[in-house]
């Protein structure tokens, strides 16, 4: 008889926990400019290595280098900086409003601003994002009215969603922002369906699907990759790998794979892995994927590598599960600082102008918040009418709902 040692269960664990020194020593970061830039009609077999690398444009000295550089002009870059800073100021204000009891809940995208902002700038009107709750930058970069966004956060009488949805669960058809569901993963495959529809109708619009590292574990994530691989619709499959899913480190979602991008390889999808804190890289790769989709070369899967600097949400306390200073040890820096330094190196920006812009944006956000609060807050009202909840359950209200609304006395 062969003797076998008793089996044991392997459970992945992060290398550090609260009290430990943050450790990113095993995190390999290729040099900026070192990853090649293939043609958009490239086949998946030719770029399998790109699922393991990291596309980066900005080097340590703030210079744009390598084959993915040179895509962005000064004007676009300055706009992008402004949108990122606006997103950060917006988050800070709304987070504070939550603490002051003006709303029930908030979620920031601190440290991840470059991804949504630069990606949106690469899309065109008519394209549709299927976002998660951490892509407010998509709306801000589309210049969606701030007051309208804030009224949603406050669930007040000005909320275009009638107070039905939790804060940050925006929806704006006009701004190419699909209604957010609280159920993770569901919308990833819906984006694929939207893109299939565009192809069925001979349109030129594309869809962009969004998911977090944690939610790549969902069944719908795999359904999305499957359908994308079979029908090759014009869809971009974005994974925002911010290292954490609430308290769960990314190893619980990746398992044995080294990267999320490699998930796509088994489906025969083109996959890229990108420095998500490098505004120029996000823009260049997004442009590449957008062009590819629009020219009918099919889907692109992109892992954006970043770090969730803030808490998961206003209900979360990350000091319970990760070192407090882990975000400052994150080796890929801050997206706003990095773009700012680059623009200074380019000679189109300065520290003074940066400070000035920051102040300007804070005033703009403050004024918008004041206006939004004139329509009420969740804490103080006025709230949308109770009647609201019976509307839009169906196109036309069936008798049983009319009866219930009557019973409620509104």
């Amino acid at each position: 008889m062969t003797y076998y040692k008793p089996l044991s269960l392997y459970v992945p664990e992060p290398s550090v926990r609260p009290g430990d020194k943050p450790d990113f020593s095993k995190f390999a970061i290729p040099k900026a400019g070192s990853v090649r830039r293939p043609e958009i009609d490239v086949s998946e077999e030719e770029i399998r290595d790109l699922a393991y690398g990291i596309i980066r444009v900005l080097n340590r000295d703030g210079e744009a280098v390598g084959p993915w550089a040179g895509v962005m002009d000064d004007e676009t870059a300055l706009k992008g900086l402004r949108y990122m800073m606006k997103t950060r100021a917006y988050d800070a204000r709304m987070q504070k409003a939550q603490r002051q009891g003006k709303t029930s809940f908030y979620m920031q995208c601190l440290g991840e601003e470059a991804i949504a902002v630069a990606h949106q700038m690469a899309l065109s009107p008519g394209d549709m994002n299927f976002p998660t709750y951490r892509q407010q930058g998509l709306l801000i970069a589309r210049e969606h009215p701030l007051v309208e966004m804030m009224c949603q956060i406050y669930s007040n009488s000005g909320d275009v969603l009638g107070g039905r949805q939790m804060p940050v669960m925006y929806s704006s058809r006009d701004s190419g922002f699909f209604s957010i569901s609280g159920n993770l993963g569901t919308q990833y495959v819906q984006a694929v369906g939207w893109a299939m529809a565009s192809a069925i109708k001979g349109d030129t619009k594309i869809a962009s699907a969004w998911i977090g590292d944690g939610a790549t574990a969902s069944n719908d994530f795999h359904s999305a990759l499957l359908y994308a691989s079979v029908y090759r619709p014009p869809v971009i499959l974005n994974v925002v790998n911010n290292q954490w899913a609430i308290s769960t480190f990314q190893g619980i979602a990746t398992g044995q794979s080294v990267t999320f991008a490699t998930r796509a390889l088994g489906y025969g999808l083109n996959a890229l892995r990108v420095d998500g804190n490098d505004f120029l890289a996000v823009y260049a790769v997004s442009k590449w994927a957008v062009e590819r989709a629009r020219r009918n070369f099919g889907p692109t899967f992109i892992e954006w590598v970043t770090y969730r600097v803030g808490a998961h949400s206003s209900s979360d306390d990350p000091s319970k599960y990760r070192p407090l200073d882990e975000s400052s040890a994150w080796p890929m820096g801050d997206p706003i600082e990095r773009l700012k330094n680059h623009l200074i190196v380019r000679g189109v920006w300065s520290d003074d102008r940066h400070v000035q812009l920051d102040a300007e944006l804070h005033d703009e956000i403050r004024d918008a918040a004041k206006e939004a609060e004139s329509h009420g807050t969740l804490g103080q009202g006025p709230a949308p009418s109770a009647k609201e909840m019976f509307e839009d359950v169906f196109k036309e209200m069936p008798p049983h709902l009319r009866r219930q609304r009557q019973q409620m006395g509104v």
Partner: protein
Amino acid sequence: MARMNMIEAIRDAMDVKLGQDDDVVVFGEDVGYFGGVFRCTDGLQRKYGKSRVFDTPINESGIVGVAVGMGAYGLRPIAEVQFADYVYPAYDQIVSEAARLRHRSHGQFTSPITIRMPCGGGIFGGQTHSQTPEALFTHVAGLKTVLPSNPYDAKGLLIASIEDDDPVIFFEPKRLYNGPFDGHHDRPVTPWSKHALGDVPEGHYVVPLGEAAIRREGSDVTVLAYGTMVFVAQAAAAETGIDAEIIDLRTLLPLDLDRIEASVKKTGRCLIVHEATFTSGYGAELSALVQETCFYHLEAPIERVTGWDTPYPHAQEWDYFPGPARVGAGLKRVMEA
């Protein structure tokens, strides 16, 4: 005896079973190192190790699927679904697999699994952190459904559920985690430490599945309630002065029909309350059973007070929630009919 809130009582039940039975394992999203977003598994991984208490990927069908496999091997898995609102991806594993495994294999394989999930509104969770989908499970042959209203019951029922050889859906009304919330959202909630049902025996005990409890004896009308609605009904009875007999069902399936029947035959009237939507809710089943068993004793039509047939709204949460005013009005309607 110890004073516990409902979170501590639930954790204690798992602690007792993990300690007594090597076959018990606990897993779900964020339940390992962190101890769960509601802290129900706090400290259990440290005490029992990573291979018995661990984090899972965000994949509810997988959570239940592996639980079914472990159960078939002979373990007693306790799976946590972070919010009841996120159980739907697991519905196939629960309905087609866990619920039927015993039957289709003629008892060769079973699913002695417990699936815990926080439920109910009251925390401004909107449509995806507020649901109580009990009726989707009571409708399925082969599942037991439990919904405790207090720390004492939560611990005893959870131990009974873990020890049960069939799959149990274990709902935890999250608005009750810290105290007996009675629907008066504008008032502070008394903590469980000041409530008799926050007295929880140490160690092992069970509250058997299928036994209801009478929370208030009365002669005017029988109120059938469970979870948060037990305390809402108590508030409504106090505020209307109606002498209601309030039955806390505790287990929806198996159901303590004897106790319901005896009470309704005594009072001659019945009000059914639940937080979930009205149409095809569990109240419809209860109403049919009361009608079938007590028809000739009924002096008034059976009434139901429930959530409206809409998604759970965010801003209008308290218009949706069937609070003491609506339950009180329901009580009056049954009395005046």
